């Protein structure tokens, strides 16, 4: 059976450091963080104060009014990213075969705020208070349904929800389907929102910086004083396209996706891969030519366990080449959220396209256990032959995607 090459031809970004690729990329390179004191809800009862929230967005500029009123906030965020991605790619959906276009979305907690509103109305008013409009947008697949309805896209449509690897899986599966010719174009990525109930849950589970210790709250991947995550939100969507389809319409190409790898670790329900073996395995499966890898966009999220494990995993795969490979974690600016992979993948595509790697900010003193070649301070200008994007979830799903420059 014929195998197709898969290219990234459009980027849609709705992030705490910018809406649209231009603003996002400028802030990435300047190291401008989206992390600020939480607005919108009261955090005085928590040990943490920070989050990387989106600023106010006028969703009317991105979404048809009739559809907009049926969407909750996360739906609007992701559909806006889809719109930006389609506009960036130059694809006119009306001119495409709707059965050959697909949507694959990853979201960890989807409409957590809508579910919470629905539940509170149920507690307050009983079954008669439960609002049907809230319920139909509360299901995790509502986001992908909104996207398909907005654009009449009728091909493959799927939603993944697996903690911090939700979007990586959506992109990896899209790659597989395009490679096998099941679609011409797939909008792949996803996102999550930072809601009050979600903040509460993460806080109660002890996941948020500064944890139970006395350290400073903040994100500093690979730093010796790192102490947990800061939550973020946003959405990143990639237009993925087969070579044939991209060539026929003369598409602009950012990068090629050339491989995906997956591996599970089994260290505990809320534990990352402790020894880095599964992270290493995912990277090894994804890359057919490890000697060309010049950049790794890390999953490192400023937790003691994951950053050390990812460093171990990178060293297991690249051995003496490790010091030549530039590593950066965009989570240092975006914060951590389950659906961050789409935005971070857009970042990798932009790095390959422009030949520049954004810095990891917040990190001051590298942990001796994380002795990688981390980009600190200034962005690194250099030609990148190929790059890896890592996604690692607590509980132990690890996914890597391998991108090549074109």
């Amino acid at each position, binding site marked *: 059976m014929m195998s197709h090459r898969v290219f990234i031809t459009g980027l849609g970004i709705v992030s705490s450091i910018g809406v649209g690729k231009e603003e996002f990329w400028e802030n990435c390179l300047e190291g401008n963080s989206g992390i600020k004191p939480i607005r919108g809800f009261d955090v005085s009862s928590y040990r943490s104060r920070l989050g990387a929230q989106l600023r106010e967005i006028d969703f009317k500029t991105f979404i048809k009014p009739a559809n907009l009123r049926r969407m909750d906030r996360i739906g609007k965020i992701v559909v806006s990213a889809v719109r930006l991605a389609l506009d960036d790619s130059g694809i006119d959906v009306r001119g495409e075969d709707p059965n050959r276009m697909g949507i694959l979305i990853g979201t960890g907690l989807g409409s957590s705020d809508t579910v919470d509103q629905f539940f*509170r109305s149920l507690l307050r008013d009983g079954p008669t208070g439960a609002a049907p409009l809230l*319920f139909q947008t509360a299901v995790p697949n*509502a986001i992908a349904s909104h996207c398909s*309805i907005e654009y009449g896209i009728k091909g493959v*449509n799927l939603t*993944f*929800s697996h903690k911090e690897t939700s979007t990586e899986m959506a992109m990896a599966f899209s790659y597989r389907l395009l490679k096998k010719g099941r679609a011409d174009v797939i909008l792949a990525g996803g996102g999550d929102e930072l809601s009050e109930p979600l903040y509460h849950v993460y806080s109660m589970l002890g996941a948020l910086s500064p944890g139970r210790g006395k350290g400073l709250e903040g994100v500093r991947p690979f730093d010796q004083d790192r102490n947990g995550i800061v939550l973020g939100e946003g959405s990143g969507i990639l237009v993925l396209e087969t070579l044939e389809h991209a060539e026929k319409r003369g598409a602009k190409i950012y990068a090629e996706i050339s491989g995906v790898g997956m591996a599970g670790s089994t260290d505990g329900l809320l534990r990352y891969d402790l020894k880095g073996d599964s992270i290493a395995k995912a990277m090894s499966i994804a890359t057919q030519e490890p000697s060309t890898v010049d950049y790794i966009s890390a999953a490192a999220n400023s937790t003691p366990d994951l950053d050390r494990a990812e460093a171990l995993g990178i060293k297991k795969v690249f051995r003496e080449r490790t010091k030549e490979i530039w590593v950066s974690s965009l989570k240092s600016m975006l914060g951590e959220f389950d659906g961050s992979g789409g935005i971070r993948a857009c970042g990798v595509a932009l790095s390959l396209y422009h030949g520049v790697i954004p810095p990891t900010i917040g990190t001051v003193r590298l942990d001796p256990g994380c002795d990688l070649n981390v980009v600190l301070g200034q962005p690194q200008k250099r030609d990148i032959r190929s790059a890896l994007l890592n996604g690692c979830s607590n*509980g132990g799903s690890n996914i890597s995607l391998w991108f090549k420059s074109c």
Partner: protein
Amino acid sequence: MRKKVVITGLGVVSAVGNSIPEFWDSLTEGKDGTKEITAFDPSPYRTKIAAEVSDFDPGAHFSKKEIRRFSRCDQFGIVAFREAWRSARLDQASLDKEKAGVVLGAGSGGILSVEKYFRDFYQGLKRPSPSLLISYSLATTTDHIAIESGLKGPRTTTATVCSSSSASIGVAYEMIQMGLADVMVSGGSDSLCEVSYSGFSSLKLIDPESCKPFDKRRQGLVIGEGAGILILEEMEHALKRDAPIRSKLLGYGICADAYHLTAPEPNGEGVERVIRIALDRSGITPEEVDTINAHGTATPFNDIAETRGIKKVFGERAKEIPISGIKSMVGHCLGSAGGIEAVATVLTLENGIIPPTIHYEVPDPLCDLYYTPNQSIKRDVRVALSNSFAFGGNNVCLVFGKFNPISECRMRNAE
């Protein structure tokens, strides 16, 4: 070259039986699992029934500490997984766990535990235990199963609710095709909770008496709960270890209606497309299909759309194909519906018995196919479909085929 994928293990927890033999007996006898709700107080609701799992004793399967940490959804999933794993004889096999993974579908997931937490939290009654929040992620059951059995292959969770666990079987199939795994655990688990019950209730989609798919008197679903787990295995791997092969998974289709957030496309156009994609991917013609395990939710619109879609694919022959609506017995188990129905479809192929659609009395002129009313039938089944559709028009169709060791052997020799 495309790998062949077979089913080597099955496990189930459901309102009509917490093991495969009990479940299958109930289905073939047309037993209804619907009962008065005990999971929460149904008195404020117009409808008071659900297909709840009964006779499920967590203490028989889990330690006290595990019971505190595992949601009801996790417990169903793990128990069904253990049955499937044992029945595939994988507990004895020297399996390469680096090439064994888990993809489950999720619906409400551990929301029952999270509900408990937030009910206490918002009402300020007492300080709820944060361990109830461990189940906040839909991935929890998937991770528990992989961790319990040390499976280090690919792992993810699909989240299209009513079609989640069918989609998970498609994704697991693809993981084997990609060479990432020899063995994949797939299917799903879900437990009854007030959030999803009140949600369907608010949409007026729940029948107050019983689930009556394709019957003119149907008024909607009966919500169910449970788990249906299937072990998918690359055929050569299964043959080499002399595994008990139950059926083949020939292929799957996934597509979108792109029509409405809750209502199906009324002409069955999405149903038609997903069946055609699945058949095409499986190398099967419509003439070869012997039975269909329907989505059959018994909502007024679903059953008409599904009937129309089936007629578009199968034409005149549609009336001769026995269709089963087993939600009439197990209810609509949301995140595990597709898994439980896939288990039933494999058992149909294996045993040559097509389970009935019960409560079928008054024909609907708009649902004019053969729904295997009230009595199971014996029939040699070589190819069976299992349909699942979800809110927002997320459609999945799975194609299962009978495993015939002699013809498989001949084909291998010829190759």
